[in-house]
């Protein structure tokens, strides 16, 4: 049976929700911006009117206001965005039991079996769009196709509050002329690399030899080939079933620039506390650590390294991040923002190949201490046990844990 999958994307999600909450903002250039005091002063989302003035997501607020002097900048309300995401999930779940979120504002729904034809799927998409307008006061773009990759591409092609359909019969004509970087999974760097081989469109990619792509890009090369040829068979998760966690990270923009290694260590240690706890809650351990360093000229660099022992210890993750930083960062500029990510995750009970060079007993003892600390914090509050160096004045913003929670994460807690 031919699959029918839709991808729905809330248009300018945060800005649309703000306009829905405050009708006086409708029709005006609106942007949601982070706190200037905490130095998160960048544009997180913008309305269609602001977009027309050239305002871009990720740019600094003053730059945006220069382009658009009438720009209204409102602070983010992440708890409300999470609530809207939850309400949106109720709408989708009326049409399919296979609903897989991607972030707070995008979702795939598998309509196979629920819609007998593309015409029926289009009618359902129209109904979903109408419900978003009337129930939540926001609009969505819906892409309809026979796999997840093409459905996502279609929703990018659909206009505001519109649907776009691509079938097995017309995907070559409609999608193959598009630039290769418009396809999900191909970032700007891979796009540039592909262009270096004169692969500019999705059609060019589809016409490549799979073995050749694999020899250049590894497994990703095969995936790109399959995706471009409409051969993606990945399933849409059942509602409430979370996709596998691939990384757990935490990052902040500091109140002031960090000027030495000591300050960087304290931020890494602080960020890693959260990661250690989340790894424990998920029952996972990390075999590698990745850091992102953004300096005060807004250049971001990313480094990663493998750990000698896969761990969920926040201290070991922080130490690895710090060693990596010392090895890679040249201090040409002071540091503005840092992110630590635990990557190459596997289940805690996965059998591990031991070697002769690591002291596993010492590692186990450290884990026991960390578990005891986590338990004390759970029972008596975050401040019950603190690393001594974190008691000093630091440059970590007060609301460093504030971030929106996608509805599926709430769902799982229950």
């Amino acid at each position: 049976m031919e699959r029918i999958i839709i991808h729905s994307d809330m248009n300018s999600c945060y800005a649309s929700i703000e306009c829905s909450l405050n009708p006086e903002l409708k029709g005006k250039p609106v942007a949601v911006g982070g706190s200037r005091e905490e130095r998160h002063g960048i544009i997180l989302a913008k309305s269609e009117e602001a977009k027309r003035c050239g305002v871009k997501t990720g740019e600094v607020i003053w730059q945006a206001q220069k382009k658009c002097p009438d720009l209204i900048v409102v602070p983010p309300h992440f708890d409300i965005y999470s609530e809207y995401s939850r309400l949106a999930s109720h709408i989708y779940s009326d049409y399919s039991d296979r609903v897989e979120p991607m972030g707070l504002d995008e979702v795939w729904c598998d309509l196979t079996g629920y819609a007998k034809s593309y015409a029926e799927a289009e009618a359902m998409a129209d109904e979903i769009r109408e419900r978003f307008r009337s129930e939540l006061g926001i609009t969505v773009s819906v892409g309809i196709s026979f796999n997840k990759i093409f459905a996502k591409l279609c929703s990018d092609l659909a206009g505001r509050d519109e649907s776009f359909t691509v079938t097995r019969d017309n995907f070559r004509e409609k999608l193959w002329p598009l630039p290769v970087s418009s396809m999900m999974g191909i970032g700007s760097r891979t796009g540039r690399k592909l262009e270096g081989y004169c692969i500019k469109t999705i059609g060019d990619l589809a016409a490549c030899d799979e073995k050749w792509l694999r020899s250049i890009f590894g497994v990703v090369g095969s995936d790109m080939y399959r995706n471009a040829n409409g051969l993606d068979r990945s399933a849409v998760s059942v509602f409430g079933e979370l996709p596998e966690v691939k990384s757990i990270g935490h990052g902040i923009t500091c109140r002031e620039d960090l000027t030495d290694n000591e300050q960087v260590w304290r931020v890494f240690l602080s960020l890693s506390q959260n990661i250690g706890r989340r790894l424990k809650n998920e029952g996972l351990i990390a075999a590698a650590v990745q850091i992102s360093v953004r300096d005060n000229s807004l250049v971001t660099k990313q480094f990663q390294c493998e750990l000698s022992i896969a761990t969920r210890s926040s201290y070991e993750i922080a130490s690895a991040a710090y060693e990596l930083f010392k090895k890679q960062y040249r201090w040409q500029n002071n540091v503005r923002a840092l992110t630590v990510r635990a990557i190459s995750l596997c289940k805690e009970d996965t059998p591990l190949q031991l070697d002769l060079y690591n002291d596993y007993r010492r590692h186990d003892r450290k884990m026991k201490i960390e578990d005891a600390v986590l338990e004390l914090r759970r029972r008596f509050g975050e401040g019950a046990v603190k690393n001594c160096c974190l008691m000093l004045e630091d440059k970590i913003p007060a609301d460093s844990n504030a971030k929106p929670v996608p509805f599926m994460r709430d769902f799982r807690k229950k």
Partner: protein
Amino acid sequence: MSGKKVYVEVHLRVDEEGRNHPESITFKTAKKYNIDKVTDVRRACAMKVGGTAMRYTVKIGSKTTYLFEDKGKWFVEAAEG
């Protein structure tokens, strides 16, 4: 089109299925209106004041109006000023 959110006291009957049946609305000024009929219940965006809530379309005498319920609090959309 904008208005203001006016929270009201609602006299409510809850049936055995847990459904709410608003029976009357009382404003802060103590003015009370009896609801003759609820013609529709659905989640909807409050177009004049913004936000989303459960919207009850109610008939009070010959007039049809909207009554909203958001997390246990009830409000109506009033004209600004």
